């Protein structure tokens, strides 16, 4: 029996958002089909224009992001790459030069020229350069120095500090491990104890927090899960709890919230939605939908010899736990298995989240018809939300695909098929073919 009291702040805030979103949906459903088609269109041209202008010049109010300029590069470049557009070569060149000036002579990238190197801006800079692609961009990264910067940021707890004397959290772990993996400089020294740190951040709710004890949060859950996969310790997490937590983060609006009982936000389309892309690949590489339900015990009803051997592959074949010299990543988990799954003859399975509902939220509620995407109706567009709404949209469109080479079926794409974005590598959030180019470049394979 529910007792009626006046709504709490949480309830009231939620009701307000629902009213706005449902009114948008109602308007949409009441429209004639031709208008509906228009509403569901991804406004590619407008988004690209908004993005390109941002890359060239940002207004004075952006000085608050002065310590984050590589992030702006990444948000913009990645978004443009997702739409399969190109940046004019001169602008590309300027960006490469700019990022080089953000690179510290002792390794790592800062938020701007002359700033202290920082793991998050390093992640953004490296991802930007990988997205730009090409020899000039990729060879501009000083991997040796970057490795030593990371070693310095490594903390005894297993975590990493964001910068000299900076904060330690799950985000720092992810940015470090992601970059090290991408550049093929991941080794035992960097990986040591990271798993323990992240494990200590999985909360009673099932999601992962930024620091041990804090609240389960979408951004940190993505970071934690991706990191555990990269260091090949993902089975140490309670995956069934994690999945159970994240599926309930999708709300009636179709979009995701970052934490229990908080409001929907377009950026979680990637942070939370991307978790499903990671899980899907885990399942595929294991050869069965075999997420253990507890204690690492596999609970699939039909145990299977092939399944067992592919489990072994995942834990041994690519295990980082093998000793290797510190720049040798041949012993790293093969992340190609996670991004580029060669078809193992599975029937198409539905994604664990509601992909079409999320796409509906992104297209109808997050798009600014003048270009750019946003958190929710009533908020302003920005480059961060543009990046993560589009990344989330890409994940949604591919969420039924077992094989990245085959284009998704039309029913996987809400709205016109022309809404289709480029596929990403979910561990790094860079466009897949840029990842592949970088992978070849850095592993010489």
């Amino acid at each position, binding site marked *: 029996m529910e007792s009626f009291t006046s709504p709490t702040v949480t309830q009231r805030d939620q009701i307000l958002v629902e009213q706005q979103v449902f009114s948008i949906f109602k308007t949409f459903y009441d429209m004639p089909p031709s208008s509906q088609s228009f509403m569901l269109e991804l406004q590619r041209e407008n988004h690209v224009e908004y993005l390109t202008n941002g890359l060239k010049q940002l207004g004075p109010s952006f000085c608050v992001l002065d310590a984050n300029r590589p992030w702006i590069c990444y948000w913009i470049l990645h978004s443009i790459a997702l739409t399969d557009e190109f940046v004019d070569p001169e602008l590309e060149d300027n960006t490469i030069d700019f990022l080089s000036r953000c690179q510290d002579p002792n390794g790592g990238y800062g938020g701007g020229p002359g700033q202290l190197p*920082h793991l998050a801006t390093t992640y953004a800079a490296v991802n930007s350069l990988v997205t730009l692609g090409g020899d000039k961009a990729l060879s501009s990264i000083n991997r040796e120095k970057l490795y030593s910067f990371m070693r310095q940021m490594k903390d005894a707890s297993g975590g990493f500090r964001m910068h000299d004397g900076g904060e330690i959290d799950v985000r720092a772990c992810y940015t470090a491990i992601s970059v090290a993996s991408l550049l093929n400089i991941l080794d035992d020294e960097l990986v040591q104890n990271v798993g323990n740190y992240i494990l200590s951040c999985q909360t009673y709710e099932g999601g992962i927090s930024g620091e041990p004890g804090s609240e389960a949060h979408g951004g940190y859950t993505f970071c934690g899960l991706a990191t555990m996969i990269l260091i090949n310790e993902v089975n140490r997490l309670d995956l069934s709890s994690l999945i159970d937590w994240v599926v309930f983060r999708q709300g009636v609006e179709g979009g995701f919230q970052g934490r229990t009982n908080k409001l929907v936000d377009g950026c979680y389309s990637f942070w939370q939605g991307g978790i499903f892309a990671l899980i899907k690949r885990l399942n595929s590489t294991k050869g069965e939908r075999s997420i253990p339900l507890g204690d690492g015990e596999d609970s699939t009803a039909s145990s299977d010899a092939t399944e067992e051997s592919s489990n072994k592959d995942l834990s041994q074949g690519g295990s980082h736990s093998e000793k290797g010299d510190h720049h040798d990543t041949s012993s790293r988990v093969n992340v190609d298995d996670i991004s580029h799954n060669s078809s193992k003859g599975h029937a198409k399975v539905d994604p664990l*989240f509601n992909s079409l509902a999320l796409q509906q939220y992104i297209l109808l509620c997050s798009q600014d018809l003048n270009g750019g995407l946003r958190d929710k109706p009533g908020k302003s567009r920005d480059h961060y939300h543009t990046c993560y709404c589009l990344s989330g949209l890409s994940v949604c469109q591919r969420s039924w695909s077992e094989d990245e080479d085959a284009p998704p079926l039309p029913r996987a794409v809400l709205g016109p098929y022309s809404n289709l974005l480029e596929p990403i590598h979910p561990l790094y959030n860079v466009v897949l073919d840029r990842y592949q180019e970088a992978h070849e470049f850095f592993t010489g394979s």
Partner: protein
Amino acid sequence: MDYFRAIYKADERSPRALRLTRRAIHLNPGNYTVWHFRRLVLEALNTDLDEELDFIQRIANSNSKNYQLWHHRRWVIERLGSNARAKELHLIKSILSLDVKNYHAWSHRQWVLQALGGWEDELDYCQQLLEQDIFNNSAWNQRYFVVTRSPFLGGLIAVRASEVRYSVEAIVANPNNECPWRYLRGLYKDDIESLVNDREISSVCLKPSQEFRDAVVALWTSDTHPLDADLATAICDILEHVDSLRASYWIWRKNKLPIAA
């Protein structure tokens, strides 16, 4: 900023440098390089750190979600030690009174409690917040933090019974509130047996029917309690329809249930 860059490059650690960092921070509180340098200067000058707290507080008024600020606060408090504790806990409360789910504030609060203590009143604080808003997940999370880590409560097992009662009351008042459900599961983390056998939980969470009781048990414990899977299957089927947003999740859960003997 050019002034700052010059001082920074020269590594000048003077009162002038300190003033410059203050100005730079006002211009852009997100500039972590400036904060870092400010710490170096503060150390070199051996400045009064209580004043530093006031400085941070002024910046915080318009930047409560800034990582650098909170990190700097931690650095200062670390040096001030337990004398700073009461004031700090009070300050965090006032920030939370403006934004009761501020992630940085909560992380900082947990850090202060663990580094400097002050646990005695924390459960009451959670209680207060939950009375104001039973849907506040940050408060539930803090409650879990307190009951599991406070040196004064005796640990999770000691408080479990009263916490179960509390969660069950919250569930009954608002069954659609996800927080107490997850909290309840959290109380029995890694000990599903006890959860299942807790009468208080079964009386409220499950319909009186024994069959239903078993079905929910199967959902939660399918790898250790191979009960009648047919009922569990039925439940999944029901959920697939009443919680259709998560239909494919319930189908997946159904497929993971052990095959009935």
